[in-house]
């Protein structure tokens, strides 16, 4: 149900994630931030079975922090993605109850991204079977099914941050119109050479204004 979106530009990556946290049929929380800041220029957004994703994300970000502390420099974006993928793959093939029974079925779709001065922007898409792929635009969850066509239509290699934000608005309008589940609020974060910034969340309210103006 939960939805993550991500767009890579020439010198930035932008992520959006819904903020709903549901247990069975009850919405427990409406302001859950699913975009985690793992280091100064690395964002991880995760979705899946809630306990596992949280546990896993924290494990990964603490290890990335430890790497920086030990070596004095950050893990490169590709290395961070690979580290994440490797851990996921190991759990997938282990028979521990933690991942063997639960995670490998439906957990831990993840987008993983960072801006690095030498490598430029990187958006890594990692799914629950530990596929990792570097992509220009990506999405996870049912909501993302409506978005691939929008990405294809509007994304271009020289996309600016404003344009990317606008694409997210288009995607979220579509999700709120067509998806059977109510995902009313999306957090948006961007990472570029200045580090990580949170942008204005996209909510049902802000979209009403958006539709009125267009």
């Amino acid at each position, binding site marked *: 149900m939960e939805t993550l979106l991500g767009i890579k530009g020439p010198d930035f990556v932008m992520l959006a994630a819904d903020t709903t946290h549901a247990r069975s049929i*009850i919405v427990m929380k409406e302001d*859950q931030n699913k975009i985690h800041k793992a280091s100064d220029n690395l964002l991880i957004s995760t979705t899946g079975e*809630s*306990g*596992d994703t949280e*546990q896993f994300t924290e494990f990964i970000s603490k290890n990335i922090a430890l790497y920086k502390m030990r070596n004095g420099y950050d893990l490169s974006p590709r290395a961070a993605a690979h580290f994440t993928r490797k851990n996921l793959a190991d759990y997938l093939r282990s*028979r*521990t109850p*933690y991942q063997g029974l639960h995670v490998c079925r439906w957990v831990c779709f993840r987008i993983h991204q960072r801006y690095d001065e030498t490598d430029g922007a990187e958006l890594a898409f990692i799914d629950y079977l530990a596929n990792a792929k570097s992509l220009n635009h990506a999405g996870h969850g049912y909501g993302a099914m409506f978005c691939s066509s929008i990405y294809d239509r509007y994304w271009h290699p020289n996309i600016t941050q404003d344009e990317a934000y606008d694409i997210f608005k288009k995607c979220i309008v579509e999700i709120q119109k067509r998806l059977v589940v109510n995902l009313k609020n999306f957090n948006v974060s961007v990472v570029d050479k200045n580090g990580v910034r949170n942008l204005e969340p996209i909510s049902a309210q802000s979209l009403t204004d958006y539709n009125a103006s267009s």
Partner: protein
Amino acid sequence: MSLEELCGLKAFLKTTNWSNSMRQISEHDFQEITSNFNNPYRLMAPVPGTPDLTNASLKIDHGTTALGFVYQGGIVLCADSRSSSGINVTTQTMDKIVPVSSQIVGTLAGGSADCTYWYRVLARESRLHELRYKRPMSVDAAAKMICHVSEMHRGTGLNMGMLLAGYSPKGPSLVYVDSDGVNISGKRFSVGSGASNALGILDPMYRFDLTDEEAFDLALQSLCQATLCDASTGGMVVLHHVGPAAHRIVRKVDCMELHKKYSLDARNFS
């Protein structure tokens, strides 16, 4: 022989002739076979790699309603006291709001044996934390501990849902944790089988700037609704208030009293 099982002796006894063994047991062996005493985390922990799921589907008694919310005057926790097993009510006087430390209180829902046990471990750990680190354990840390326990016992049928409430210098915090490893903090939660009923009253009437009396009334009213609509919620309704300095039981009311009060209110019988 549940004690033997609890402390880990049973597996040992199966394989050993007791009369001979006393002479052969070394200090190390003894420590090994009673290790559950020293380290509660080892209790029932699955053997890595081969999870024993034969008991995972066992029917655990659950069915309860607990709610908690943060408002300007602190945190309110409210729970019923009925414990049921299948279709039977086992007791009407179970304390489902448990003090963990002088700062933290929690509610229990799910398997009451699991909850009670892990609350006792949590209480012990929080006291040790106070002694070791010279400051009280934060609610976040307590919740994290339960998360780790949940993760360790994945797939063994552990069944808990807890609301932990407490104060830190930064202000009030209310966290929901459960045996799936979920750990979310928020302003307003309800757990258990009657949660949806309680939320129906709680959500529309909740405001942050409630006065103490209004907050207590709202909690009781929500829980009263849950006792009406949910078969496994009932008995005494216990209301706890968590303030910056201390936590206390505000009221303990039989839900029958609440029914009389609020159903008259709501339906204008008089």
